[in-house]
């Protein structure tokens, strides 16, 4: 059997397993399934609100971009990339070290390059797929506010996902060689946790800074409309 045929055979096996796992998750009891679907729809709808709050004001962005916009876009891309990287590192460690079927596969004469190629491709797909799902509300907001040109953002998300998977594999393999598989697993989990925490903290910082500016703006507005005691901005102006 050719290498391509072997790859496709193993890929079919992995797809069958993943499909059945997913199906089992989605089709528990009828009540559970209904609740899961409602929760998914609600989550997707609710995600549009923070998406609008965070990114809505950038929908009509035009070239050439100013320095602040470039900084915000770069930071957002980096944070998203870091989050995907942490997810990918965890997945790569699991695939290379913790999958329960590794003993069976490695004790067989199967070509391990094929096996790991398929699994690495699956990681890249999973990371990118998850990123696409999470980014869809943000892109929706941009498309609604700024036009279909923003659909190209999906291409960027795919590129970020694939590059994160590639870097995760490189980091994990390097760690394997330097500190061995068991330590790699620990380090990878710590790195993933730190990156995840960093992402949340960065979001908080952004929210605080953005919220603070909005609060100052609304205070100014209220003052000018006569709600503030005399002697503030109105008298100053």
């Amino acid at each position: 059997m050719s290498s391509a045929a072997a790859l496709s055979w193993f890929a079919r096996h992995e797809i069958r397993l993943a499909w059945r796992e997913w199906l089992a998750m989605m089709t528990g009891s009828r009540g559970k399934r209904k609740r899961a679907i409602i929760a998914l729809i609600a989550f997707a709808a609710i995600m549009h609100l923070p998406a609008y709050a965070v990114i809505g004001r950038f929908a009509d962005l035009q070239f050439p971009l100013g320095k602040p916009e470039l900084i915000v876009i770069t930071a957002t891309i980096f944070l998203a990339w870091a989050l995907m990287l942490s997810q990918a590192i965890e997945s790569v460690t699991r695939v290379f070290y913790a999958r329960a079927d590794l003993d069976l596969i490695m004790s067989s004469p199967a070509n391990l390059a094929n096996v790991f190629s398929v699994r690495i491709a699956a990681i890249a797909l999973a990371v990118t797929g998850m990123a696409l799902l999470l980014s869809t509300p943000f892109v929706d907001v941009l498309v609604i506010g700024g036009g279909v040109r923003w659909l190209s953002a999906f291409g960027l998300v795919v590129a970020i996902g694939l590059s994160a998977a590639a870097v995760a594999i490189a980091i994990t393999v390097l760690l394997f060689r330097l500190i061995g598989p068991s330590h790699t697993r620990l380090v990878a989990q710590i790195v993933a946790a730190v990156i995840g925490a960093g992402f949340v903290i960065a979001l908080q910082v952004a929210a605080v800074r953005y919220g603070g500016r909005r609060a100052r703006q609304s205070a100014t507005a209220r003052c000018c409309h006569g709600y503030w005691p005399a002697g503030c901005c109105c008298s100053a102006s």
Partner: protein
Amino acid sequence: MVRNEQLDRPEIMKADVSALEVRGLTKRFDRPAVDALDLTVRTGEFYALLGPNGAGKTTTLRMVAGLLKPDAGSVSILGIDALAHPVAAKQIMAWVSDEPMIYDKLTPLEYLEFVAGLWGIDPAISSASAHKLLLSLGLEPHLHERCERFSKGMRQKVALAGALVHDPRLIILDEPLTGLDALSARHVKGLLQERVRSGCTVIMTTHILEVAERMADRIGVIAAGRLVAEGTLTELRQQNGRGDSSLEDMFIALVDTNAAAAA
């Protein structure tokens, strides 16, 4: 299905050789797990490898199965240098761990078809032997059920069937009878003995000394990564000057002596 071209190479197999020949096998983690171990298992033999917990049994067998790289030493499987030609060695060998993995979302038949595929066997060919194996292990009523609701014993039987589906010449089993009820254990023992009768070699670790006593042609006792005794039950009795004592008595005496010597 993932067959490698390296597999069918009779030129790297020597005639009339031992099923397993291990020389100076060494593996060190925090301390030596296997310490310059020499071990020979003859072709067509049922060999039981005994030892206390942490003696190095599983580490030895994992190195033989190609799952762990030895620090030093050589492993020869039916004349094939398993370190130089791992793919060819794996082609004629099967490994079942003490906690075998089977896919929850596959039926036993699908699992066996997958395992056969790993060994490059066409599903059309493997299907018949898969059926036969599962029937002989008493799994007939569950052929088309997914394994997710199987008991530990049923899982072990499916894993064992998976190990036999490609008709290996050397079968290595780590504690295959743990967790099996009496009937399942009988099924497994019967199947293994049938394989030995047909010329296959079986190496098995077990803590159930009675099983080793009844089934094994030869028994090896390993302690602190070294083979401390080996032979048939009669030979072991002679070596230890314990006329008609049980294997359990001899095993405990051997392990105690070794522990005292190490201290």
